[in-house]
């Protein structure tokens, strides 16, 4: 576990909303010198506290009108290995995230499609044909917001 002080937390908060900030610009915001800010940013990246960057894109503007969350239960646990399912599901471009979960489902998938009929195509041709797939439960995303979290 990485120990953070208040300044580290302020840097994380700033980068979580804009990862392109330079050490100079961020330092000016926080009243730190450019080299000090740069060293702290480097430590946050190298320690893995910052796992990477994500582009924030307008999905609808790029033609992706539908986002659906699928809860997938495997039908034949033990017979088809989890690795086979995971390899196949990760290879589907429309599947944005795959989470292994414990509870009502085995996996939770985030899927994008241009519209509902495109989603139906992805579901029938790509999801339902995955090795070991059993029941699939779908929820269409209406709105979403990300929160800064406990920093």
């Amino acid at each position, binding site marked *: 576990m990485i120990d953070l002080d208040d300044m580290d937390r302020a840097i994380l908060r700033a*980068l979580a*909303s804009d990862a392109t900030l330079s050490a100079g610009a961020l330092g000016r915001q926080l009243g730190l010198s450019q080299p000090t800010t740069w060293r702290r940013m480097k430590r946050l990246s190298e320690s893995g506290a910052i796992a*990477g960057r994500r582009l924030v894109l*307008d999905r609808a*503007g790029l033609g992706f009108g539908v986002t659906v969350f699928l809860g997938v239960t495997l039908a034949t646990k033990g017979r088809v290995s989890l690795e086979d399912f995971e390899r196949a599901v990760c290879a589907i471009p429309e599947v944005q*995230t795959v989470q292994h979960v414990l509870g009502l*489902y085995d996996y939770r998938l985030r899927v994008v499609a241009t519209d509902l009929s495109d989603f139906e195509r992805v579901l029938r041709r790509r999801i339902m044909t995955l090795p070991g797939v059993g029941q699939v439960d779908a929820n269409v*995303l209406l709105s979403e917001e990300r929160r800064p979290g*406990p920093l």
Partner: protein
Amino acid sequence: MQADDTDRRILRHLQADPAISMAELARRATVTEATASRRLERLRTRGILKGQEALIDWRKLGWEVEVSLRVTLDKTNPHAFDEFTAAARLVPEVLEIQSFLGRVDMRLRVIARDMAHYQDIYRSRILTLPHIADIEALMHIADIKRGEALPL
């Protein structure tokens, strides 16, 4: 359509490696540097490219527990969605708030330092949120695919 094939190709390469230099991005997308930078500027102006966020690894910061709480609301109250969402925003451990059309109405992504801490948040901050009719939990074990890349 607001983005053509060249825009998509540039975004695809930028999405795969967001910290890339403009020169390298141009090379991978097989356009000139001037074109790449002009296209990105246009995508920003049109609101297609809204920015870049750093992804925080909460586990590395000592937040070991992650749970998806799927909530069904009491829809007899017309303000149920708004009031639930407003109250959920006040819980610092809530990282995402999503609303759905389907079997569940809302989903909260919640993190906690350990199971005891999670139980505390669940009892004192989550179950006290307004208009909950039913709630079910999915415990997060592992991210198999992450980053939410779009199939551009």
